[in-house]
């Protein structure tokens, strides 16, 4: 794959990859197609392109964490990443996620899904296979999905305090039926202590913290641990 920006010009591979990385941060997803349209199959491996996209998203995530990128801007970065993935798929490139599967959704009783959607974008850009169940998701749908996908992690979200009981209920049932699954929670009414009190393994205050917290709770999965099982 080469990158003929100008006819006859040989552009260093690193510069091409830098362009791809930068377009992830450009806050203008429409530019992605333009950049990809100039890529020529053959000189760049899809993994390299995806790697550059991921590097761009990693920078965006750092900026979000540091307050240098706002949530609206970060949403546009996610859009750019997804468009890039779409372009790769269009070129029949293999872009399958390499990390664990994560089932995610907003618990029943809540329809606010922006936070969850941002986390989905962050996880996808970090290489996880994400099964997004959407919003207002009943408990049984989570349980079915864990059964179907054999995911290692369940991520639950709510922006309201009223569905916290539903969140607790989902966690209790996952403990009973899928004791090996790790559970991460997030959302406005939660903090670390409340997350622990309803039985979650991890809590992420913001989307930028999610990959680190996922790694932490999955690392616990890799070694024998006592898994609290709800009674009753």
């Amino acid at each position, binding site marked *: 794959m080469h990158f003929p920006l100008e006819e006859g010009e040989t552009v260093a591979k690193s510069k091409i990859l830098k362009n791809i990385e930068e377009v992830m941060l450009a806050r203008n997803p429409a530019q992605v197609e333009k950049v990809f349209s100039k890529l020529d199959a053959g000189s760049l491996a899809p993994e390299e392109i995806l790697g550059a996209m991921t590097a761009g998203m990693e920078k965006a995530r750092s900026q979000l964490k540091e307050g240098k990128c706002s949530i*609206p801007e970060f949403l546009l970065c996610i*859009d750019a990443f997804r468009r890039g993935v779409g372009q790769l798929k269009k070129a029949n490139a293999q872009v399958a996620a390499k990390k664990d599967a994560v089932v995610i959704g907003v618990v029943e009783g809540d*329809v606010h*899904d922006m936070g969850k*959607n941002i986390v989905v974008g962050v996880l996808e850009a970090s290489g996880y296979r994400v099964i997004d169940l959407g919003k207002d998701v009943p408990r049984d749908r989570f349980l079915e999905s864990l059964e179907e996908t054999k995911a290692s992690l369940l991520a639950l979200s709510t922006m309201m305090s*009223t569905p916290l009981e539903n969140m607790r209920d989902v966690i209790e049932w996952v403990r009973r039926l899928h004791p090996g699954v790790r559970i991460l929670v997030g959302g406005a009414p939660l903090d670390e202590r409340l997350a622990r009190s309803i039985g979650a393994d991890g809590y992420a205050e913001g989307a930028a913290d999610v990959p680190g917290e996922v790694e932490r709770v999955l690392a616990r999965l890799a070694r024998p641990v006592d898994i609290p099982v709800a009674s009753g």
Partner: protein
Amino acid sequence: MPPLGSLPEPLLDAVAGISSARGRWTSLTAIERVLTTFRHKEPDRVPATPILGAGARQIKGIPFPDFATKAEKAADAYCSGFEFVGGDLVVLLWDLSVEAADFGQKVIYPENSTAMCDYNDPVVKEVGDYRKVKPIDFSQTVRMQEFVKLCRIMVKRLGLRTVIGGFVFGPLGVLSMMRGAERLFRDCVLYPKEVRKACEAITRTLIEFVQAQCETGVSALAIDSLYASRNGLAKQLWEEIEGPFVREIAREIKKNGVSVAVHNCGHDLYFDAQIRSMEPDAISFAHLPDDCRTPKELKERYGDQVTLIGYIPTPLLVTGTPQEVMTACREQIDVLARDGGYILAPGCEYPPNIPLTNAFSIMKAAEKYG
């Protein structure tokens, strides 16, 4: 409490000074207490409010949908909450869908939760729809008129015993209910002119809404500007898009002699930008602002500019023991209450479905440590 803005500043300071002096040997009324702290003088004790809204419906078993749509039922809930738990300030807040509902947004009224907009069926479906948002005939609104009725009833029933505060969601917030926050956020970056156009139209109606609330005799009115925080827009973009409109709303409230409060439960909220835009008398907050790392810094930087209302965390109210909540209250009182200008309160509405135990803890802490 009389409309503070209608009285000359020196008179208010004199009244507050007398109240502060009286407060050293006798209990003040809730109204005196709030007036004194609003003038940045120390009352007999820190004023407190549990911001009990839908949580108070538990006392009389009023269903959520009735609370959210019927002024009489809501007033019963608020009054029973006040009689049961107390409060130097009663903030009338239904939910964030009130204004959007009257702009045609479909709203879901669950039996066991707060009313919320149906984002699967937004009024603003595409960018071109922003320009179709027009001011509405306020006399024909349903939920806003009902909310005004609630203000009127509450002022009549409790207006001499506590401070009654009204509420309005800022135009960008209303628009987020009609578009979905995620789509709106993208549009704010990509199509700011379109978003501003819709905000402008919504603001025309919101001005009538706040005028009507002010006419009921409420003493203060809170503008919710949630997106002036890191949960929302970048500071400069917020000031460009919503800032001018909340300024208009705040001016209208002040013109009516009513105190302006800002409510913003976002993370790293922009105290500076909101003060620039609205020049509020008070800010109710759940988290520290973006330019302060500690509550001490917050008090030093903003304590003489606005009355601080907050900021007991919602999760603590859900999981904390009464003693833990009281300890948190004491810590905040110790840092924020010096020289007045502070009202002890949760960072946001008291969680509607939890027991009222920790609402009592807040009031008890004010009495014991305030």
